[in-house]
């Protein structure tokens, strides 16, 4: 907490930016929150809401794990179990991971990183948040209806999701909630694209944007490509349920597999919509705490773009076992995604290499991300191969694979909260509690996922409430449940940390000696973000300003010609 490494250099005062502070005589109290169009307030609302969703989804997960700790689990009924895992998946994917990735930290950080006064469309941004909040309420309110919440799995495969097999309001509320959050995501995508394209500060060329902003821009493009497909699919599903159309039902001449095509055409890009923002967070954090520029910056950008490009052509690797898809095409496309992902992994290692690594909580979480993501990424490669997918499809191997990935994302998200939290609140979190939280989360994740891999290989199918015929699976399930409890403890520790360090450790403008523009302004930033901006001559303007003479250089070279100090800028 004490070794604040800020080293302000006596450099010339930079030119003022156009975004001047305005006097606002807006409303106060709760109305102030409801009417705010400030991207920082909206981002904070997103953060709090999505973390609450993480806790709700986590409670469902703990119930599921306790149910599975005995072969004839009787904590909940079969019907309740179906509702629980459906809502666990839905809450975690639709209401936590997505909004946290592209709504929460993105909203706060992207305008700051590119030197913008706000998002391009502040009111649209506010509407995104309210749509997300109302969508979450809609989806969760299914639990309070007579028939219970949706129970067809978070993928809602037709024809299980039709009105005969799943009557009741819970399923409709699920569709309605998803429509609202889907529109919220689309609007956020539009907003992020426009912000990045039009509101960058002078000198902030595309290839000087921080990797986090790059990843969010690519995420926004993917949102615009993928989410309309989901929304259209949901409308079709609703029409099948209530207006007597037969788009997904065999009886009327429809094709059930069409739902899977539509769902996964959204669903696989969605995986990268979730993952890319966290990749960006980890990239920033590793670079800052290693005191080095991002290794292979341009390679990183092209890797992100190629992940986006390939992600539109891999959806049917979720459908290999349907027997009606083009196997080799989807197999090679899915395998190829491993290449840019590998480039990213080696770039992260290259960033740490010969650096000066400071083990703050954020950095520990980022390292935890690297290791967990390595496990999840490598086991994903198996699933791109149709024969191995036939073998492991719908078993706990798949469950373990994507839980390794999403738990890596949770580690990355925690890293982001510890790293950017001080910027938005003005106060640091307690590092000791943070490090204890890291060890609970990291060890808990491995204890939770690794038994699931073995269970999957032994043939335990997913979405079963009991495994009476194979009681020997109890031991591994118990270990996994223990891991889930450790993860739960880590979440409690996070809340404890917020309470304990409430307004206790003032952060200052730049507590981490960071690289990017958001650390150039105050913590928390003023309305419209910046009183002044430095000259932008690389993707690390704040670092260049604080450490003149330490610009990034290619291997064995002197600083690149366009990275010369600010006061030597040739004006064209």
């Amino acid at each position, binding site marked *: 907490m004490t070794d604040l490494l800020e080293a302000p250099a006596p450099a010339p005062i930079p030119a003022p930016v156009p975004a001047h502070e305005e006097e606002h005589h807006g409303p106060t109290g709760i109305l102030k929150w409801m009417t705010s169009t400030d991207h920082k307030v909206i981002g904070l609302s997103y953060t709090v809401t999505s973390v609450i969703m993480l806790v709700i989804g986590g409670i469902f997960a703990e119930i599921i794990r306790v149910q599975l700790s005995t072969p004839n689990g009787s904590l909940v009924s079969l019907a309740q179990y179906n509702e629980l895992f459906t809502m666990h998946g839905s809450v975690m994917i639709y209401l936590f991971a997505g909004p946290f990735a592209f709504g929460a930290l993105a909203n706060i950080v992207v305008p700051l990183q590119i030197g913008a006064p*706000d998002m391009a469309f502040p009111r649209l941004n506010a509407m995104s948040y309210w749509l997300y909040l109302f969508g979450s309420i809609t989806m969760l309110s299914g639990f309070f209806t007579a028939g219970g919440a949706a129970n067809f799995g978070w993928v809602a495969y037709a024809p299980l999701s039709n009105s005969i097999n799943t009557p009741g309001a819970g399923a409709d509320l699920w569709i309605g909630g998803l429509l609202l959050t889907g529109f919220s995501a689309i609007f956020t995508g539009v907003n992020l694209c426009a912000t990045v394209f039009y509101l960058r*500060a002078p000198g902030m060329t595309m290839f000087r944007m921080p990797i986090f902003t790059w990843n969010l821009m690519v995420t926004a493009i993917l949102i615009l490509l993928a989410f309309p497909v989901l929304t259209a699919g949901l409308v079709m599903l609703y029409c099948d349920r209530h207006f007597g159309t037969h788009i997904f039902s065999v009886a009327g001449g429809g094709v059930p597999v069409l739902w899977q095509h539509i769902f996964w055409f959204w669903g696989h890009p969605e995986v990268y919509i979730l993952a890319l923002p966290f990749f960006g967070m980890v990239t920033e954090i590793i670079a800052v705490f290693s005191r080095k520029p991002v290794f292979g910056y341009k390679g990183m950008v092209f890797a992100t773009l190629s992940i986006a490009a390939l992600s539109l052509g891999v959806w049917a690797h979720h459908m290999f076992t349907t027997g009606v898809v083009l196997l080799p095409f989807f197999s090679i496309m899915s395998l190829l995604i491993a290449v840019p992902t590998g480039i990213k992994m080696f770039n992260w290692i290259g960033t740490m290499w010969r650096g000066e690594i400071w083990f703050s909580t954020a950095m520990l979480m980022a390292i935890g991300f690297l290791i967990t993501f390595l496990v999840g990424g490598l086991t994903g490669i198996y699933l791109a191969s149709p024969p191995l997918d036939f073998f492991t499809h719908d078993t706990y191997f798949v469950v373990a694979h994507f839980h390794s990935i999403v738990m890596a994302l949770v580690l990355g998200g925690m890293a982001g909260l510890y790293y950017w939290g001080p910027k938005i609140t003005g106060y640091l979190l307690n590092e000791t509690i943070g490090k204890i939280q890291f060890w609970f989360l990291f060890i808990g994740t491995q204890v939770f996922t690794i038994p699931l891999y073995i269970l999957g290989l032994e043939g335990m199918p997913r979405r079963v409430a009991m495994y009476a015929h194979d009681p020997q699976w109890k031991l591994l399930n118990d270990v996994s449940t223990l891991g889930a409890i450790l993860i739960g403890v880590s979440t409690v520790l996070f809340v404890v940390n917020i309470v304990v360090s409430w307004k206790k450790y003032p952060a200052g403008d730049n507590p981490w000696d960071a690289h990017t523009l958001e650390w150039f302004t105050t913590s928390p930033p003023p309305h419209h973000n910046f009183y002044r901006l430095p000259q932008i001559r690389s993707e690390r303007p704040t670092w260049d300003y604080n450490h003149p003479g330490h610009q990034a250089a290619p291997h064995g070279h002197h600083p690149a010609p366009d990275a010369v100090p600010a006061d030597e800028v040739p004006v064209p």
Partner: protein
Amino acid sequence: MKVEAKILLGLGLFFGLMFAVYWRWSIEDAGGVMMFAGMLLCLLPGSYYYWWSRRMKARPEDNPYATQTQGAGVVGAFPGSSIWPFTMAFGAFFVVLALVFGVWFLVPGLFLMVWAMFGGTAEGRRGGKV
């Protein structure tokens, strides 16, 4: 503007290539149609940006040697606070509830949405320039 255009055009061309390969060998149409639409969704704004990038001077944010003073002036309109986003979303909430609990929810839903549309537009005309 050139880099933005090239990213979108590049993605669009790649989706077009994937579409061609997939359409040739696949046995279903939905995926091909969605990929083709994805291609259009990238090519359309991409070619628009490209067209503009050839006709405009490099903006300060595209100039690697720009100074902060070059960005002086009005950036855009950024309203300080507004109730209309909340009103609009609250209306949308009721419209979605109409899907589940009955058509009468459309009445408050559509009323709120239309009200928010007019209110927001009128507010937008007043501005709030930065």
